[in-house]
């Protein structure tokens, strides 16, 4: 049965300074990373596409905070945040965006194709909806091997009308897979708003028909995300129950750098109103008020984040382009 009504808190430890520092630090790292990436894109250093998750950082940071390093995460093309939160080195992520040889995908993938085996980040996927069955396969393999890992799969509201979303929900329920399905509902799939794409706009309700626990969460509240995902992880780890979470969030920037304002299909007022729910500002204020962090702590986090990202940009700048011969490698196993 769907469990929207479940109110039990996850058995997570109370927030302390260390956790607050991590959550704020992760969100600020993602934000700063993407701001710098946007600058680099404008300078022509990044080719292809660049989809920023600015405004949506609480989902990646909150969800990852309840995962183990060996848990799996798999994502869409808007995946910088998921990849960084999972623990990938920002220098190698930036180098990938720059198309350089030290990038996570040897500079041959680009912004939408980040993979990091060291933290079990299974990549960005540019075909909307297509990675959901892959995620279910990972869940199947975890069960098959008798492991206790879980698999988190991020996708957008745009994946919900695709058949593969429904195929994957059904499979995960039928096969009892240790999945945490996280729909980042930012209300738009490119220029198409939710109401114009879905007959049922309460996305979490799709979990109901497949009989899996499912619920919406304020995706701008990192602690709320942490709590919902924490409970889902417990269920997945202990009794292989999948969960569908609809994280209600908003992208402050356009769909991609080619749609910088994103203002054709949504009003300026709407964007400005949503920016008042900035997840970083909300959590920073909360942390200071609760005494988890001091103003000085916040400044220190900020400085550390800025330094790390400056370093990442310098690293990417200094990394050479992949050699031309690499065009022909990694197609089949080479001996």
């Amino acid at each position, binding site marked *: 049965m769907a469990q929207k009504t479940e109110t039990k808190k996850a058995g997570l430890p109370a927030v302390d300074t260390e956790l607050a520092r991590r959550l704020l630090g992760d969100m600020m790292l993602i934000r700063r990373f993407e701001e710098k990436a946007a600058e680099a894109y404008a300078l022509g250093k990044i080719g*292809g596409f660049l989809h920023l998750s600015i405004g949506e950082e609480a989902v990646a940071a909150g969800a990852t905070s309840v995962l183990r390093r060996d848990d799996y995460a798999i994502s869409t093309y808007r995946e910088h945040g998921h990849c960084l939160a999972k623990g990938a080195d920002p220098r190698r992520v930036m180098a990938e965006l720059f198309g350089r040889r030290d990038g996570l995908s040897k500079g041959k993938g680009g*912004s939408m194709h980040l993979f990091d085996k060291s933290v079990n980040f299974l990549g960005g996927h540019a075909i909307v*909806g297509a990675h959901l069955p892959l995620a279910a396969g990972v869940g199947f393999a975890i069960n098959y091997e008798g492991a206790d890992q879980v698999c988190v799969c991020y996708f957008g509201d745009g994946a919900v009308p695709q058949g593969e979303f429904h195929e994957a929900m059904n499979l995960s329920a039928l096969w009892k897979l240790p999945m945490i399905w996280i729909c980042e509902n930012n209300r738009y799939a490119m220029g*198409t708003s939710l109401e114009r794409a879905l007959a049922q706009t309460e996305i979490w309700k799709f979990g109901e028909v497949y009989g899996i626990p499912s619920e919406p969460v304020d995706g701008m509240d990192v602690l709320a995300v942490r709590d919902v995902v924490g409970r889902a992880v417990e269920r997945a780890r202990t009794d292989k129950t999948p969960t569908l979470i609809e994280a209600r969030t908003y992208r402050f920037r356009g769909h991609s750098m080619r749609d910088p304002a994103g203002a054709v299909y949504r009003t300026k007022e709407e964007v400005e109103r949503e920016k008042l729910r900035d997840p970083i500002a909300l959590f920073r204020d909360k942390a200071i008020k609760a005494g988890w962090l001091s103003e000085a702590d916040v400044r220190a986090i900020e400085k550390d984040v800025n330094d790390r990202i400056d370093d990442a940009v310098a690293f990417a700048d200094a990394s050479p382009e992949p050699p031309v011969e690499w065009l022909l490698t990694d197609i089949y196993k080479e001996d």
Partner: protein
Amino acid sequence: MAKLNMVKALNLALLQEMERDEDVVVIGEDVGVDGGVFRVTEDLHRKFGGKRVIDSPLAESAIIGTSVGMALYGLKPVCEIQFSGFAFQCFHQIENHAARYRMRTQGRFHCQMVVRMPYGGGVRALEHHSESEEQFYAHIPGLKMVIPSGPRNARGLLVGALRDPDPVIFFEHKALYHAAKEDVPDEIEALPLGRADVVRHGRDLTIIAYGAMVRVAREAADTLASEDGAECEVIDLLTVSPLDRETIVASVQKTGRALVVHEAPKSFGPGAEIAASIVEGAFLSLEAPIRRVTAYDVPFVGFARERATVPDVGRVLAAARETLAY
């Protein structure tokens, strides 16, 4: 007569055919209110409304599947897939249904529909947004596969495709959308499918190309004329399938040498079929092995190295010189 780029020329074709024929409907992701990723369907929603210009949810299989149903009833849908790389999400609908209904129903039902997709590389895009997959469609009996090379023939071919009673896959090269403007007549012009165009005449070597590779082939031919004194004939296929074998064979019977240029990977690509057709039709005229300049047999790599895989003038020149010297 107006000077139009390829985007505007395609838009004109849609506009005029929709005015002429009420059964023509447009369907795809963001084709309506937004006017399409590359703006080919701009203003159509404003002119014809949501009944005829349909914004579909993100669901490629549904776009093609419902279009097949519409066509069976008698409508003439024009579907847009945002990038050809996403069309594997609906490939089964194209292959199993659109292409086969005529045969499966012995002609009692058919699918008059066009599937438009931007394709091709060299535009600093990434995987899924740069590939050339014409070979998959060209291989399917029952489908036609059309690829224009400039604004005027794009407009004429799209009209031709819309009026064709069989399903047509219509590829539009992203690099050509804004590359050049051409005079496009105001009155409707429909080009027949299945006919190639000899865009440069010559006696020494036949270069066969289509889409964005036509410009590359012509530039190489100009260089060969000025630097090597060799006169190349350049054939713009326009329709990849059904292949205009007659035009190709006639040209090679004259030149004795042939070079095929395409952006799709080499193995089992259109170049193989073209080469086989030349051997079948002009075997005794051949004076050199037929060469192919194509992408390598690798998945498309990101922008960092795309210039090394998309055929360019340098690679065509080198291959042409070897063929000429053979």
